């Protein structure tokens, strides 16, 4: 409570130091930071309510950018306006920047010759593979729901393997998403219309439109 009356400068310092601490201590970044953020800003300083933090979490995952910096910027913005966002981002960047800079200047080329060190790297790479796999599967389960969406993901995946630039794929996904959502809303509206008319189940009227993928693609 008393923190609410803190001067602007103290607030910025608090933001800087908190995010410094968070990225200095939390391995893995992104969502792993969440419990620590909650402990500092919700429980200890009461600068955010739990609902605000939940909203923020949803938001940081929808806007582009890495999740850790997104959280810093949005929480900083909420607590201290634009200067707050800058202070929080600076705090979040400082520790990883320094640590990696030290490591990078010690080993400019990460190509160990020692057998055991090679083994250590191989072990971590294998673990990272597993982690990305689990993250990917969780994302798949959360996002991909209909057969059409599975097909779209597979097409994007094959295009990526065929060395189409990932940047291009993401950019192409935006107009596709617009067409898809437009088509979905229209289909829903038509189904409702059908249901309102009484008679047949909505499925029947929808069938022809559901056929070729181009309906959701760039035809319109």
């Amino acid at each position, binding site marked *: 409570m008393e923190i609410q009356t803190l001067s602007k400068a103290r607030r910025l310092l608090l933001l800087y130091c908190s995010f410094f601490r968070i*990225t*200095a201590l*939390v*391995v*893995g*970044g992104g969502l*792993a*930071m969440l419990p620590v953020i909650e402990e500092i800003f919700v429980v200890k300083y009461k600068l955010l309510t739990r609902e605000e933090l939940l909203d923020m979490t949803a*938001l940081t995952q929808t*806007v*582009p*950018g*890495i*999740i*850790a*910096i997104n959280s810093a*910027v949005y929480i900083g913005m909420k607590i201290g306006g634009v200067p707050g*966002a800058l202070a929080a*981002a600076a705090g*979040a960047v400082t520790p*990883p920047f320094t*640590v990696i*800079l030290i*490591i*990078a200047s010690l080993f400019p080329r*990460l*190509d160990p010759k020692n057998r*055991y060190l*090679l*083994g*250590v*790297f*191989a*072990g*971590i*790479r*294998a*673990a*990272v*593979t*597993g*982690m*990305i796999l689990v993250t*990917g599967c969780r994302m798949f389960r959360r*996002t*991909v729901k209909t057969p059409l969406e599975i097909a779209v*993901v597979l097409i*994007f*995946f094959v295009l990526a*393997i065929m060395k189409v*630039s*990932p*940047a291009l794929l*993401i950019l192409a*996904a*935006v107009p596709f*998403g*617009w067409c*898809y*959502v437009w088509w979905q809303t229209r289909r829903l509206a038509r189904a409702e219309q059908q249901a309102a008319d009484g008679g047949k189940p909505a499925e029947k009227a929808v069938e022809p439109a559901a056929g070729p993928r181009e309906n959701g693609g760039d035809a319109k």
Partner: protein
Amino acid sequence: MNHCLVLFFQFCKFSVLCFGGGYMLIPLLTAEFVDREQVLTMSEFGNLLSVAQVTPGPVGLNTATYVGYVNEGFFGSLAASLGLIAPTILIGCSAAAGINRWKETFLVKGMLKGTRLAAVALIMFAVTIFLGLSVFRTAIPWESLGALFRFERPVLPEGFSVSPAGILICGVTVVLMLKTKLPTTALLLGAAAAGALLSAWF
């Protein structure tokens, strides 16, 4: 200096395209720095990401700092990190309040839907990149797999083999992640130790 500016804008681009977390940077970074500019080899990139994953801090920022350093030294690191956060700050300061309100509008909804599907595909692609660095000893030979569709016998490239240690560690990590709540740090330390031990046998 000029090259630092290039790095800055490259990372701005990655940041804007990075929907769905730090792992999304993997396909973007490998396409740019391994395939196109060839300042890194794929195995160096794998090691770099391992270091980024083990050291505290968000994986995306760690990777950016490291890639910047490999390219242009200290100022490269600075340019890459700043590039990664600059768009976030711009978007955050201008639109943070609005986004929750716009979430239901057609344009935002469609963009999120499309980019999320692409993100899932690209993370699956990142998995295949990393399979080629851990479970298999070379990158996955997609050309050889293509031969299967033409009903020919696939010709595997030189040095392509399966690493038993890689399969074991990857599998155990997946199981532990799904069945237990062990922190990432513990998993990574265990994997590092297991890797060192297994390298003595294989």
